[in-house]
Every structure is written in structure tokens, then in C-alpha cells.
């Protein structure tokens, strides 16, 4: 046996990015990464996806911003963030010390803004961008783009012109046709799609007779949405050729492998980080052990291997 074939290969490619393993952190659940350095080895991650970044700082929604639901949670943070300038000056230099690609999740209130943030990041140490056209918690810059074909075409056109590294489009489950939107993104040059963002949800405080969240609606995440995410990833991976990044309720390596078998080339860990801040590295380690135990040389050999009865 040649030595090279004996090593288990956990690496995957997403656009121009080569990741040492398929496990990323999901935007908004991992801060700017540094908050987690006491809980896990940031270099054991496939990639770090940071909190959504806009052109200008954003205050976010009034509290109450989150609430737990059955096996899930609603959030309506309202994309509070420090803005792209401060991100580049204060956070990125610290993050760049780690040998893990940093992906910036970006958003704006109109197409122009999105393009401007992408342009500002073009020459930075950021390895790729994830374009959030699916946030349910802001009046503008969120869901109105999720299924707007014209806006998406315009946005991708603008971004591709100013940003030459990897572009991932983050899709919303709050449409009847996520596969069609994914195909559109592929056609207009996206390097990958990531799904799903949160499902629009709501909680009511019966005693006060008010919505629990100040924003009324929030985004549902966590194990509760895993079946919905799996179905959408499976349907999308059947249709597009670019990599699909699976997100939604992934709590452990078995969940992650289910997404990979169903068609995902990589996964993101979101709400799980709140239960266990070391979750992403545990998932990565679990995948590696699984490959070894089952004598599978490369995680790539598992992608989209679902069999039908």
C-alpha cells in the first residue's frame, strides 16, 4: 500500500477555496470567531464564517432578540454588526493569524450596498464571501431578495465584477423554489450555494398578549429545522453542479454526514455552537473517525451517495 493512500483525506473544495475539512461555522452563531478561542482550536475548522457584515455599523433590533422553541430557537438580532471598516481594522488582523480561511457573510439594504461591501473586501485577507440574501429579520436587505430573480442577477453581476475570490450565495428556505434560485445563482457565476438560512417564525407571550420578539418575527434554527434543511439540500444538490453547503440543525458528526450523503460538499454548524461551543471541531473529528472506521479514503467519496430503495 502506498503511504499517501493510507491517510484519510477530509479536505473539500468550495469554489477556489480548499478546506482542510468540510466543517464551517454558520454566520451569526460564531461571532467574529475570536469569542470561541477558549473553547476550541480555531485551526481545526474548515472555515470560519463570521457574523453578517454591512457597509456601515448596524445597531440591530431592540431586545428581546431570541427565544427558545421546541428543539429550536428564534432569533431576530437584526444583523447588529460593526461595519466592514471596523471588521477589517479590528477583527480581521487577529483572525488572520489562524491558518483557517475566513469567509465574510455580507449583506446590504440594496444591491449597490452588497457590491460595495464585496469590493471593500476584495483585497483583504478574507478568503471568500457568503452573500446573505435570506435574512428574515431586517426590513430591507433580507427576504425581498430571496426569490427576486432580477435582483439576484444584478447582484451577482456586480459582485463578480469587483470580487474575484470565492462567492457563496446563502439561500432562504422561505420560498417555494429554492432549487430554482440555486440554479439561477449557478448560471450567474456563484461558486457555491449555502442553505438553509432560518425559517420565518414567531412566538407569542400568552400572559402579556404580545409577540415575544420585539421584531415580531424571527428566524427559526436548530434541530427542529433539520428535516427541512436536509430536504432542500437534497433537492438542490440534484439540480446544480456547484457545491452545496448544508446548514440547519446540525448538532453532531452524524447529522453532518447525513447532509453530505444527501448532497452537501460541506456543512455549517450554527445553533449547536450555543449548546456546545466546541461543536464544530467535534463534528470535524467525528467525520474523520467515521471515515477511518469505515475505511473511506476521502470525505469526497461520501458526497451525494444516497441510495434509493
Amino acid at each position: 500500500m502506498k503511504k499517501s493512500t493510507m491517510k484519510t483525506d477530509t479536505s473539500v473544495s468550495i469554489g477556489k477555496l480548499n478546506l482542510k475539512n468540510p466543517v464551517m461555522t454558520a454566520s451569526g452563531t460564531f461571532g467574529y470567531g475570536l469569542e470561541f478561542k477558549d473553547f476550541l482550536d480555531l485551526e481545526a475548522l474548515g472555515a470560519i464564517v463570521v457574523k453578517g457584515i454591512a457597509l456601515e455599523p448596524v445597531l440591530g433590533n431592540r431586545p428581546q432578540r431570541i427565544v427558545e422553541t421546541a428543539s429550536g430557537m428564534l432569533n431576530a438580532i437584526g444583523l447588529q454588526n460593526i461595519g466592514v471598516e471596523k471588521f477589517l481594522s479590528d477583527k480581521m488582523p487577529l483572525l488572520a493569524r489562524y491558518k483557517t480561511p475566513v469567509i465574510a457573510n455580507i449583506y446590504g439594504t440594496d444591491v449597490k450596498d452588497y457590491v460595495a461591501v464585496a469590493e471593500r473586501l476584495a483585497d483583504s485577507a478574507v478568503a471568500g464571501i457568503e452573500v446573505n440574501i435570506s435574512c428574515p429579520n431586517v426590513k430591507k436587505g433580507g427576504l425581498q431578495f430571496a426569490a427576486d430573480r432580477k435582483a439576484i442577477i444584478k447582484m451577482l453581476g456586480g459582485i463578480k465584477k469587483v470580487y474575484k475570490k470565492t462567492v457563496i450565495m446563502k439561500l432562504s428556505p422561505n420560498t417555494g423554489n429554492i432549487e430554482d434560485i440555486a440554479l439561477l445563482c449557478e448560471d450567474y457565476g456563484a461558486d457555491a450555494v449555502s442553505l438553509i438560512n432560518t425559517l420565518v417564525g414567531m412566538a407569542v407571550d400568552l400572559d402579556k398578549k404580545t409577540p415575544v420578539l420585539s421584531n415580531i418575527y424571527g428566524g427559526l434554527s436548530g434541530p427542529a429545522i433539520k428535516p427541512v434543511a436536509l430536504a432542500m439540500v437534497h433537492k438542490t444538490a440534484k439540480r446544480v453542479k456547484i457545491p452545496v453547503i448544508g446548514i440547519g440543525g446540525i448538532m453532531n458528526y452524524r447529522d453532518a454526514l447525513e447532509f453530505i450523503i444527501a448532497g452537501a460538499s460541506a456543512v455549517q454548524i450554527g445553533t449547536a455552537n450555543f449548546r456546545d461551543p466546541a461543536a464544530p471541531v467535534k463534528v470535524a473529528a467525528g467525520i474523520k473517525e467515521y471515515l477511518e472506521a469505515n475505511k473511506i479514503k476521502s470525505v469526497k467519496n461520501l458526497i451525494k451517495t444516497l441510495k434509493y430503495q
Partner: protein
Amino acid sequence: MKRLTHDSQVVFNRKIGRGIFHMRLAVKAGIRVKPGQFINLLVSDSYDPLLRRPFSVFDASEKSIDIVYSAIGRATFLMSRKIKGESLNFTGPRGNSYIDFITPGMKKTLFIVVGGGTGAASANYLAKWLRRAGMRLKLIQGAASKGLLIKAGEFCKKGVLFSTDDGSAGIKGFATDIVKKAASVDSVVFACGPKPMLGALKKAVPKGTRVFVSLEEYMGCGIGACVSCVTPVKVKNAGTKRVKNSFEYKRVCVDGTVFELDELVL
């Protein structure tokens, strides 16, 4: 790495009041807790409840951390059924501390420590710390009624003042009524309790008295990453060209839980 996630075992889990429990967790030696900090407990292997739950440290030793909690919902009901020997994982201790605000100039200061409801938990540990540090101290606890008073730790000592809304124990009225009598501009007030109590504190003390309060907000991560636990804090130089907003959101879990009352937008 990983030094902030801990496995612990239940040493005891006693009922000490109406729906109120005192739980001691055995931990590996070496966890340092400062008064006002909290731990974030994973209550169940099940995904329902999903999130961790934050609890102020009521007491701590080299080998144990105590909390006092009220069984009010799903997670705390589950906690109340835990028995000796069961394992519980927690992150933390996290958050700043009351004592971060103590300056060398406060050696002779009278510290008024107020706990309302389960806010008494962090008041206890703070009082213990102040007593051991030889500080002057007045400890006050307020609750809705006698059965809800927490009589454990420092609260069993002499000189503690109690209030109940219904007068079933201590003075009839609010803890802030006691503060009103005790506070002077030279004293420093440390308080933890429900929002209305914290609001009332402002009026209870003479203008200029420094008041520090520990806040509770709904938490997602408990480690500063999700910005869900925020509270509005006044911004200095607000209204100037560079500073547009009159307030900014600060994270209770890591920027607090203790804030100077004057800075808060309540």
C-alpha cells in the same frame, strides 16, 4: 483550550423555599469565580430544552460551585429533579464582577448589597467576598413573601435585613425601601434583582451615589458571540458628529452582567 467547559456532579439539590432550590456542583479544583459571575448550564441531553441556562454563582469553593434557583419553567423543573451524583455540564464562569468596580479609594466605604428574588444568589457570594475582605457591608434581601426568601449562606448571618411585599417576614415593602434609609452619597450600592427593582433603586438613593447592578437578559450563547443578550447603554459624546446614536447595545454576558446604573437606558 476548552478550559471554559466543565463537567460537574450534583453534590446536593435541596429545596430551600417555595419552588426554590439550592444545588451544589462538584468541580475539578482550580475554577476561580468572582462575585457576580454566572455559569451556563446544559440541563438535558434532549434537544428540548435546547439552550443552556444561565445561573449566578451563589457560592464557590476550590472544589464546588453553588447555585440557587427558582423552578419556573421547563429547564428549571428538570433541574429540580436532579439527584446526587448526576452529571451537569456548564460553561463559564463568565461575565465581569461587582468587584471590578471597587477601587483602592473605597477601603472605608459602606457597601450596600441588595438581592431581590433569585438575584439574592449573586448578592450572597458578593457579601461573602466583602466580609472576608474586611469591608463594611449591609446585606439586604427582598422577596414577594416569606416562602420565597432565600435563607442560606450569608443570609443566615446576623444583621441581614429582609423585606417582603406582603409583610410575611422582615419589613413590609420593598428592598429599595431599606436601601433608602441606609444609603448615602458615600456608600456604594451593588444590586441584582428584577428590572422594576433596579429602576426603583435610582430613586431610592441620594443623587451621586454610585449604584452597580447585575442584569439578566435572555441568552443564546453566553460567551459574547450571538449578541442576543444585549441591553442599551448610553454612549458618551452622543449627538456629536462622529457618534450618531445616543446609545449602543452591550452584551450582558461578557460586557456585563454588572453595569453602572447611570449608564443604562432602563
